[in-house]
C-alpha cells in the first residue's frame, strides 16, 4: 500500500469534527471475564422463547494508513439444551485476501472453567472469493457462555465492511466502533436504526506506535441494545434489508503535502463505469442500425418506436441468468449474434437500439431489489449489479428493463422496482429516482366441476395469470416439467386424492399466461345422510401465511394484486342446493376479501376475490393483517349442502 510510507508523518494531523466530542461510556469487556450480571441472564422479555442470546457483539474497526483492522469480540449464552444445537457450532466469513489474526474461542462453564476450542477443529471453508472460518465449541451445556474473538486485517480502503447490529439470534448489545487515524474522513449510511441509534459517541485516543510515538485516533461508537432476531418469514425481502446496519465509506485521507480521495462523485463513478465496462463493449454497435431501422421504420411516433425495439429485445434475446457478471457477451455485436445475454447485455442493446431509432436513451445502473439496498449517501458502485434503460419519450422519462418477454413495455420487473439508480451519461452521470407503474396483476382461477349422482367430481380448471404473476409463472412453466408444476402449485394443495386427465399451458400475448388442467377429485363431496356436503376448490391462500404472533419488520407483497376464484358446479340430476354459506366481505386498509355463492337450478357458482391494493404493511399493522388472512383461510371451510332426491 502506498500509504505506508506516509503513516508516521501523518501523526500531527487533527481531524476536524463537526460534532462535539463525547466521552465514550463504554466499558470494554475483557476476554474470559464474565460478570455476575451475565451469568444471571435468562430469556429476554421481548423474546422469551430464545434458546440462546448474543450477550454482546463488539467490533472495532481501526483505519490507519498501513492497514484496516476489525477487532471483533462476541459473547453468547446458551439458555436451553436446544440452544446447544443452535449456537455451539459457529463460523464467520471474510474476504479471500483478508488475514485473520488472534482467533480464540472458548466455552466458560457456570463453575468458571474455561475450555478453549480445539485448534484441530478450527477449519476454513472456501467458496469463490470468500472464506468461512468454522469451529465447534467444546464441553457446551445449557447455561454455558461461549465467546470468540479475532481480528480481520485487510487493505480494503475502498470498501469497509458494513456492521449489522442484528442477526438471526436475539442480540442484547451490539457495539460498533469506527476508529479513524487522524487525517481520514468518512461518510456513513445507516438503515433500520432505532431513533437516536445513528448518533455516535465520539472520543479521541492516542495509540502507541512504538518508539515513543503516539498516533491520535478519533473513535465513533455506535451502540444498540435488545435487537430482536431477523429470521425468514413470508412476504419479506432479503433478511439483511431489515437489520439495523451501518455502512461506512472512507472519503479521503490527508496529511501535509498529501491528499487522497477514496471516493469519486457520481459523475466520476458513472464515467469510470462507462470507461471500464461499456466503452469496448459498444465497439461495433453500428451493426445494429439496419436491424433498428427494420423494426422502427414504420413507426410514426416515439412510443411506437420504443415499444417495437423493446418487444424485440425482450422476446428475441434470451436471458442468461448468470448474476455474477454484467455482460456474458464480449460486445454488443456478439450479443446480437448469440441472441443470448444477461439483463445488462439485453438492456444495453435496448439502449443502443433506442438511440439509433432517434430517441434519447441512457443505461442506468441499479441494484436488484432482491439483494441490494440503494444508499445515495455512499459513493460506490457495489450497490449496483445490473443495467436497465432510461428513455425519453414525448418529453417524459420511462425506465425499461427488457429482461423478460413476460414483462410488457413500460413495466419494470419486480426486482427492478428500486428507489434509485445511476443514469450513465459520462461526466454528466447522475442519480435518479426510478419511477415505475403497477401493472394489473391478477390471477383468475376458473374451475368447472361436474358432480355425478354418487358425488364424484370431474373438474377442469383454467388459470389466467396476468402482470407480475404471469411473469413468475411464465418463467416456471418454461423451465419446469408442467405436470410437476401443476401438482406442486395446484392439486397437491387440495389434500385430496386426484387423478390428472390432461393439462396445457399457453403463453398468450405480452403479460398473459394461462393454464388448463382437467382432473378428477376424490372426497370433494362427503355424505350426510341423504345429503352431500361440498367444499369449494381453491388453490391460493388456503392457509394463513402469517403464523407468527408478532413481526418485527414490515410485510412486503412487492406489488398490488388481485386473486379471483370462480367455481362453477353442475349438479347431477336429483341434486339441489339446500344451504349456501353466508357471503363474506372483509376490508382492511390495503386489502379486501369477499365471497359470493349463487344458485340457479342445477348450477352453483362460488366466487371469491382477494385484493391486495397496498403492497407494504408496516409491522404495527401485522396483527390486523394476520387476522384478515385468518378469515380468508377460514372461508376454505365454507360448505354447501346439497340434498339428493330419493331414488
Amino acid at each position, binding site marked *: 500500500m502506498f500509504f505506508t510510507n506516509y503513516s508516521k508523518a501523518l501523526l500531527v494531523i487533527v481531524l476536524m469534527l463537526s460534532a462535539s466530542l463525547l466521552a465514550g461510556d463504554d466499558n470494554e469487556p475483557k476476554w474470559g471475564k464474565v460478570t455476575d450480571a451475565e451469568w444471571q441472564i435468562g430469556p429476554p422479555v421481548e423474546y422469551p422463547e430464545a434458546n440462546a442470546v448474543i450477550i454482546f457483539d463488539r467490533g472495532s474497526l481501526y483505519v490507519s494508513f498501513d492497514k484496516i483492522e476489525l477487532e471483533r469480540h462476541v459473547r453468547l449464552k446458551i439458555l436451553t439444551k436446544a440452544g446447544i444445537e*443452535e449456537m455451539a457450532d459457529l463460523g464467520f466469513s471474510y474476504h479471500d485476501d483478508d488475514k485473520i489474526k488472534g482467533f480464540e474461542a472458548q466455552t466458560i462453564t457456570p463453575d468458571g472453567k474455561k475450555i478453549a476450542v480445539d485448534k484441530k477443529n478450527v477449519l476454513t471453508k472456501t467458496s469463490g472469493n470468500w472464506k468461512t472460518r468454522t469451529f465447534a465449541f467444546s464441553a457446551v451445556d445449557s447455561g454455558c457462555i461461549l465467546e470468540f474473538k479475532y481480528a480481520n486485517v485487510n487493505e480494503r480502503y475502498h470498501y469497509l465492511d458494513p456492521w449489522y447490529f442484528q442477526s438471526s439470534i436475539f442480540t442484547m448489545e451490539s457495539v460498533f466502533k469506527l476508529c479513524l487515524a487522524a487525517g481520514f474522513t468518512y461518510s456513513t449510511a445507516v438503515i433500520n436504526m432505532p431513533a437516536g441509534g445513528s448518533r455516535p459517541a465520539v472520543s479521541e485516543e492516542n495509540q502507541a506506535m512504538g518508539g515513543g510515538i503516539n498516533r491520535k485516533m478519533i473513535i465513533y461508537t455506535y451502540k444498540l441494545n435488545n435487537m430482536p432476531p431477523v429470521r425468514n418469514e413470508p412476504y419479506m425481502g432479503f433478511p439483511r434489508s431489515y437489520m439495523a446496519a451501518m455502512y461506512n465509506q472512507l472519503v479521503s485521507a490527508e496529511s501535509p503535502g498529501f491528499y487522497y480521495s477514496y471516493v469519486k462523485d457520481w459523475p466520476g463513478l458513472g464515467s469510470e463505469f462507462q470507461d471500464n465496462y461499456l466503452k469496448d463493449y459498444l465497439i461495433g454497435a453500428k451493426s445494429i442500425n439496419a436491424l433498428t431501422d427494420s423494426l422502427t421504420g414504420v413507426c410514426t411516433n416515439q412510443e411506437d418506436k420504443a415499444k417495437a425495439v423493446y418487444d424485440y429485445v425482450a422476446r428475441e434475446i434470451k436471458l442468461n441468468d448468470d448474476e455474477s457478471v454484467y455482460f456474458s457477451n464480449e460486445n454488443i455485436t456478439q450479443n446480437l449474434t448469440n441472441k443470448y445475454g444477461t439483463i445488462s447485455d439485453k438492456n444495453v442493446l435496448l439502449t443502443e437500439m433506442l438511440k439509433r431509432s432517434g430517441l434519447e436513451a441512457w443505461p442506468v445502473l441499479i441494484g436488484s431489489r432482491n439483494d441490494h439496498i440503494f444508499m445515495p449517501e455512499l459513493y460506490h458502485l457495489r450497490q449496483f449489479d445490473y443495467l436497465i434503460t432510461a428513455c425519453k419519450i414525448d418529453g417524459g422519462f420511462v425506465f425499461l428493463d427488457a429482461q423478460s418477454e413476460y414483462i410488457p413495455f413500460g413495466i419494470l420487473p419486480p426486482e427492478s422496482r428500486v428507489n434509485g439508480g445511476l443514469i450513465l451519461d459520462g461526466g454528466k452521470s447522475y442519480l435518479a429516482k426510478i419511477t415505475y407503474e403497477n401493472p394489473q396483476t391478477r390471477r383468475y382461477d376458473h374451475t368447472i366441476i361436474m358432480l355425478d349422482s354418487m358425488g364424484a367430481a370431474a373438474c377442469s380448471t383454467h388459470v389466467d395469470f396476468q402482470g407480475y404473476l404471469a411473469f413468475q409463472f411464465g418463467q416456471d412453466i418454461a423451465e419446469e416439467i408442467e405436470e410437476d408444476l401443476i401438482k406442486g402449485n395446484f392439486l397437491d394443495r387440495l*389434500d385430496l386424492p386426484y*387423478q390428472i386427465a390432461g393439462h396445457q399451458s399457453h403463453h398468450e400475448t405480452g403479460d398473459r399466461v394461462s393454464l388448463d388442467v382437467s382432473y378428477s377429485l376424490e372426497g370433494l363431496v362427503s355424505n350426510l345422510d341423504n345429503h352431500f*356436503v361440498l367444499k369449494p376448490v381453491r388453490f391460493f391462500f388456503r392457509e394463513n401465511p402469517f403464523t407468527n404472533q408478532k413481526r418485527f419488520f414490515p410485510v412486503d407483497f412487492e406489488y398490488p394484486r388481485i386473486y379471483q376464484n370462480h367455481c362453477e358446479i353442475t349438479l347431477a340430476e336429483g341434486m339441489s342446493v339446500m344451504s349456501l354459506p353466508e357471503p363474506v366481505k372483509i376490508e382492511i386498509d390495503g386489502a379486501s376479501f369477499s365471497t359470493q355463492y349463487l344458485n340457479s337450478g342445477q348450477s352453483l357458482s362460488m366466487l371469491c376475490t382477494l385484493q391486495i391494493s397496498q403492497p407494504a404493511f408496516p409491522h404495527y399493522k401485522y396483527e390486523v393483517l394476520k387476522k384478515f388472512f385468518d378469515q380468508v383461510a377460514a372461508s376454505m371451510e365454507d360448505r354447501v349442502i346439497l340434498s339428493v332426491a330419493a331414488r
Partner: protein
Amino acid sequence: MRKYFIMMAVAICLGFQGNRAGEEENKKGAYIEAMEIVTTIKGNSARQVFFQRTAILNPKGKDFGVLSMVESPNIPISKYEAFAYDDKGTELGQYELSDLNKSCGFGESFQLYSDICHYSAQPIFVQYPYFLEEKAELELKSLFFWRGYDFQSGLPVKKISYELLAPLDFQFSYKIYGRFQEPEVDTLGKQVRYFWSATDIPAEAEEDYIADCHPSAARIDFMARDLSLGKFKFSGGTWQEVGRGFSLLSKDCFLKSENKTIPGESNTAAQISAARDIYNQIISDYRYVSVSVGISGWRPNPAALVEQRKYGDCKDLSILLVSRLRQAGLQAYPCLALTRGDGETDTTFPGYNFNHVFAAVMIDRDTVWMDPTCNKCPFGELPYSDENIPVLLMSDSGGILVKTPVSTPALNRTLINSSITLLPGGTYRFASNIECHGNQGNYWRSRLTGLSKDEIRECFENWPLGGSRQFKITGYNYNRDLYPDAPAVLELQGTSRKPAEHLGQVYYINPNLYGFGRYLESLELNKRTTPLDNDYPHSRIHEITFRWDSTLAVDSLAVPSDEVLEYDFARLDLTYSRNGSEAKAVLHTEMKGYYISADKMAELAEFRSRCLNLLSRPVKYFLSGR
C-alpha cells in the same frame, strides 16, 4: 457424523444426438448419451477415467447441463476437460477445472466440515440442442475407495460401460445389478480387461417416498481382496474380514478398560440399569459434530479426546459409548451400518459402503441397541433409520453381519384420547391427550426441539385436520423433557371456528380429527411404479367421547356402524358405542410394514379411499324440537 464414508459422487452430465430423443427425454429436456468409466488398478491405488456426454434438448433440461466434479485428498482429480458442442458438432466452449466454481470444506448438510472440494459450472447456450462432454481422471489413493458406481440418474442414459484393467494376479469381487450383463474378459499382456456394458437405462422414477428396496437399473459394486488405508491393512472377501479391517482402525481409540467390575454379573436388571445410565449420560452431555478430514472420515477420534470436547461424530460417540460400557464390564460392540434412506446393504456382497456407526451391548443373551447420535431416542430404541437393516457388528473375531430389530405397529403407537363437546350455536370443542411411543415419540421430541414459540404453536395448530382455518387452538402442552424413557405426551384443545354441519336440528361431527396418513392423502398411486416407504410400521388408536354442553337439549346420539378393513399392508378397525348421554368411537388405524410394494398400489388406493370414507362418517346429535 452420519456419513462414515465419503462416497465419491461424481455427478457428471453429458449427452448427444437430439434426433434420438424420445418422449421421456423431451419431457425432461435432456438425456445422457454415454457414461463410461475406465479403472486401471495399480497396486493399492487406481486411476479412474470418467466420461459422460449429455444432450440438452430444451430449456427444461438446462439444469441437467451442469459440469460438476468432487475431489478429496484421497481422490484427487489429476486431469479434467469439458467441451460444449452444438448439434452440428461445432465447439461452443472448452472448460478446464479452473473454469469451474470451486468450493471446499462443505460436506453433507449435517457436517461442520469435510475436506472435499466441489467444482461446478453451468454452461448455457441459447440454441437447443447442445451437448456437454466431460472427461475427468481421478487418482484413488487406496483401493478402499474403489466401490463401484450407480449409473442410474435423473436422466435416461443411452449407453453405459465400465472397463476394468487389472494385473493378472489382482483379486477382487464384483456384483452387477439391473441391466448390466456379465463382462467381456480379455487378457492383454500382463493385464486383464473386464468390460461391462448396458444400454437404455431409464431415469430414476420421480416419485415421493421411494423405498430403499427399489433396485437400481444399472449398478456395479466392487471390492478388492487386499488393500490398505494409511498404515491399516484390510482384507476383503468376507464380512468377517471387513469387520476386522474396521476394528483395526478404531483399536487404539477406546478408553482404557481399567474398571472391569461387572454390575451384578448374573443380575440382568443391574446390567441394564448400568447401560441405561451410560447411554443417557452420553446423549445428554455430548453433541453430534461431524468434522471429516483425511483419515478421520473413517477412523474415530480417541474417546479420551471426545470426553474433553464433549462432542463427536457417530463413530466418536459410539466408540466412547462402547468404551464406557466395557469399562462397566459389559460386552459392547460398535456396529457399521448403511442407514435406511441411503440404500440397502446387499448382504451377499461384502463391502465397505457404510455411512453410520452405532452400538450394541449383550445383556443376558439379548442385544440392546443404542445410537448415541439420537439424543431423542429412549434407551433401547433405535431411530427408525437404523431399524430393520443389516449391520456389521465389530466383534473381537471380526465382523458379524446381523440385523437390527424390526419394529411393529404396536411399538410405534399413538394413543389419543379425545373428547368432543357440542356447544350452543353448533360449534364444538375438543380436547386431546396424545401419547406417542417409539418412533412416533422420537419424531415429536425431535420436531419440537429448537423451535420458537411461534413455530411450536403453528405445529400444534396444523395438527388437526383443517388446521387453524377450521379450529381455534385454545391450549396446548407437551412434556419438555428431551431425553425421556417415557412416551412423548402432548395435549391439545381447540374449538371449531364454524358450526358443525347440520340439517335442521341434526348436527353432524366428523370424528376424524387428526386425519389419516397425511403423506398418503394426495399421493398419486395409480401411476406409481416404485415401492412406497412407510418409514416404519405404526398405528394409531384414537378414542373419542362425544358429549354436549349441558344447556343443549339433545335427544339422542347416533353413531356409524362398526367396520373393519384388513389388507396385507394395513388395517382399519372402527368401533362405536353409545352409553346414555355419551357416544364413543375408537378409530384404530395401522400400517403394518416398512414399505408397500409397487404391485400393491391399486389395493393401497382402494384402502385409502375406503378409509377416508369410513373415518369421516359423522356422529349425529339429534337436538330436541325436530
